[in-house]
């Protein structure tokens, strides 16, 4: 297998983008990534695009072809493939691009992710997202995504004594980071009280425990490490990659409070990268709900089960803490265009490792991403390092 580096990154601003169409979101992110890598379109060998549900959000399938066409790459007949794993579509798109380059099949590969969620109302969005769970046996029982993660939170708080304030601190910290990220959907710091007094969505989760509904796209460009310096002075190497599956339904998990696919994907990425937890400078984790960040920190092995609430309360997951989590603002504050999130995590990680994350910079050599589909049925992790 060849060594692989990221040579260019691009990301749109995240938010409610009434004025921008699905295809233009992708074109914008792709153009930014190409410019960043000093590449022209015809040098691209292959494109992967993560997308959860354009079929239901904008009634468009055949996303690979659409995107190749509107990015001006169909004239050169460049192959394009859509990748889907619910909210982990972006992370999986990156993994596909990575394996394409590592295998020697392709040299210059784009990994993108895009989602346009605000063309439909909240009720439809809720139903579309529910398709990431088991439609026949969870959907029919009246689940919503906030509801599924809320059931994790109920059991977790009961078992480990996690407090309402500790949970809220996850959102406060992520809004603090989002305020320093020009691409973030929410750029206003909030207080514990903002979270605790916000409307209940699915008890115990409130509005500010939830990631929002978001439009956005991100794209990154991968190349063999040996060629990376043709394009950039600051290539960022892929050190490790791990993917794992678990049960589609939350009720079938061995332990409701553990995403066993996070444990497996994390371990695989660490094994491949040959680094330790203590070497990691920060992690972009999948905080679709505040409780999800608590579980992720533990399941990735950064503290024991039941201790992430305390770690968060002590400020250890903030920028400057022992293990900074979600310097981008995470899904909570940066926003969660479901198919784009996994690629945005890579974008943020590359910015950090290059030293380009103005105002929220962490001084480190190594960073990690963690992207979850559904309640943990698919998890994709990557570890990156400077060269």
């Amino acid at each position: 297998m060849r060594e692989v580096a990221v040579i260019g990154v691009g990301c749109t601003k995240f938010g409610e983008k009434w004025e921008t169409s699905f295809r233009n979101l992708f074109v914008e992110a792709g153009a930014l990534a190409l410019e960043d890598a000093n590449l022209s379109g015809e040098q691209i060998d292959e494109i992967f695009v993560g997308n959860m549900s354009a079929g239901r959000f904008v009634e468009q399938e055949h996303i690979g072809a659409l995107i190749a066409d509107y990015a001006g790459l169909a004239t050169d007949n460049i192959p394009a493939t859509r990748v889907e794993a619910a909210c982990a579509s972006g992370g999986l798109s990156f993994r596909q691009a990575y394996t394409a380059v590592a295998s020697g099949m392709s040299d210059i590969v784009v990994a993108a992710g895009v989602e346009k969620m605000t063309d439909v109302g909240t009720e439809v969005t809720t139903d579309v997202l529910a398709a990431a769970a088991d439609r026949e046996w969870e959907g029919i029982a009246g689940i919503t995504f906030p509801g599924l993660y809320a059931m994790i939170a109920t059991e977790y708080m009961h078992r480990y004594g996690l407090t309402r304030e500790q949970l809220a601190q996850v959102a406060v910290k992520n809004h603090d980071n989002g305020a320093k990220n020009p691409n973030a959907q929410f750029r206003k710091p909030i207080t514990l009280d903002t979270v605790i007094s916000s409307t209940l969505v699915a008890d115990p989760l409130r509005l500010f425990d939830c990631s929002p509904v978001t439009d956005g796209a991100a794209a990154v460009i991968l190349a063999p490490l040996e060629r990376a310096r043709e394009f950039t002075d600051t290539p960022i190497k892929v050190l490790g990659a791990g993917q794992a599956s678990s049960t589609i339904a939350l009720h079938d998990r061995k332990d409701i409070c553990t995403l066993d696919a996070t444990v497996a994907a994390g371990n695989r990425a660490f094994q491949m990268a040959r680094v330790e937890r203590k070497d990691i400078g920060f992690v972009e984790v999948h905080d679709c709900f505040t409780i999800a960040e608590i579980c992720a920190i533990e399941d990735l092995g950064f503290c024991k089960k039941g201790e992430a609430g305390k770690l968060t309360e002590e400020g250890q997951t903030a920028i400057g803490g022992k293990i900074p989590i979600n310097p981008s603002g995470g899904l909570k504050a940066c926003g969660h265009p479901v198919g784009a999130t996994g690629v945005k995590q890579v974008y943020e990680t590359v910015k950090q490792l290059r030293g380009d994350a103005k105002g929220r910079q962490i001084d480190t050599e190594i960073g990690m991403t963690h992207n979850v589909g559904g309640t943990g049925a698919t998890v994709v992790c990557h570890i990156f390092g400077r060269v």
Partner: protein
Amino acid sequence: MSVARFWRKQQNRYNLIGTRCTTCGKYFYPPRGFCPDCRREGKIVDHQFKGTGKVVTYSIIRSSSGNFKLLTPYVLAIIELDEGTRLTSHLVCDIDQVYIGMPVRRVFRKLGEDGSSGAIFYGTKFVPA
């Protein structure tokens, strides 16, 4: 959910009929046609569940979609049946009545409908025992 799609699982939903692997003795509801532990060595047969169990965890859903919108706020729960398998269900009770470990039993209820003039679906829900 389309009529055909619902009908295929109607017996399971009406009567809480799941499956059991006779090789390892595990129970499955929702039913599985393939044992994840024994795989090709597994032998699957139908099984009638007793219909009693307890609440493993729950939430109160305040914002929902489709058929469930009219029910808000409602209790959603993961229930462990006495036979050991777990399922997700709407729990028909007051929102402040539910707690972890609460004993529950099955009832036959309307699950939803396919639009205002379409088919009405019935099946199993749970109530406090």
